[in-house]
């Protein structure tokens, strides 16, 4: 499978781990971001989320994912990096983003995995929309 991408299908974390597996690696770290039931409004009041949607600027998002994966490999001396993000409707509890990093040793794998998710949230053109019982709205920031 491609190491980075967008999909409107459920994410397959096991396949992602397999995609980064290597004889040179002594560790594979994975991160899975899942869509959350409870959101908070501007006044910090909890609102139950019925479902979520992700919209992407597809071509640029895939380019950014590749750039982030390349940067992680260079900065953390890891072996392989894979990162996929889901688009369209993502029911509560399902994975919206999945990352797998293989490295000779665990510290670099954890560090690179953290770097990738932070960069995804900061700089990949993807937007989350939450649907509530009484309406829908775009989520505006990267607080996650």
């Amino acid at each position, binding site marked *: 499978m491609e190491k980075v991408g967008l999909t409107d299908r459920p994410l397959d974390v096991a396949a992602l781990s397999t995609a980064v597996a290597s004889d040179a690696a002594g560790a594979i770290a994975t991160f899975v971001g899942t869509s959350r039931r409870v959101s908070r409004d501007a006044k910090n009041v909890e609102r139950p989320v019925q479902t979520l949607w992700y919209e992407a*600027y597809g071509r640029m998002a895939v380019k950014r994912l590749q750039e982030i994966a390349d940067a992680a490999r260079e900065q953390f001396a890891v072996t392989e990096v894979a990162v996929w*993000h889901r688009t369209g409707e993502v029911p509560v509890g399902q994975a*919206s983003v999945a990352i797998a990093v293989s490295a000779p040793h665990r510290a670099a794998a954890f560090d690179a995995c953290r770097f990738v998710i932070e960069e*995804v949230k900061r*700089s990949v*053109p993807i937007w989350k929309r939450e649907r509530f019982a009484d309406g829908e709205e775009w989520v505006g920031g990267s607080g996650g």
Partner: protein
Amino acid sequence: MRVEVLLFAAAREAAGSASASLDLTDGATVSEAFAVLAEQHPALRAVLPSCRAAVDEEFAPPSRRLTAGSVVAILPPVSGG
């Protein structure tokens, strides 16, 4: 010169369209494109100040000069992950 504009998420909804075409003076900047866009789509005025731009699929500062055929994407604050 003409440039193509792509609108996403809250910006797309405010404009009621996913794309637009702008007629700009030669050498116009991203910032000038935002101003013309706000004139054509007053509903975008509340959204544009928080948006970043990408030109030809790369983030671009307000001072970036555009060329004929540039694709300018209007990007509200991202919320992936």
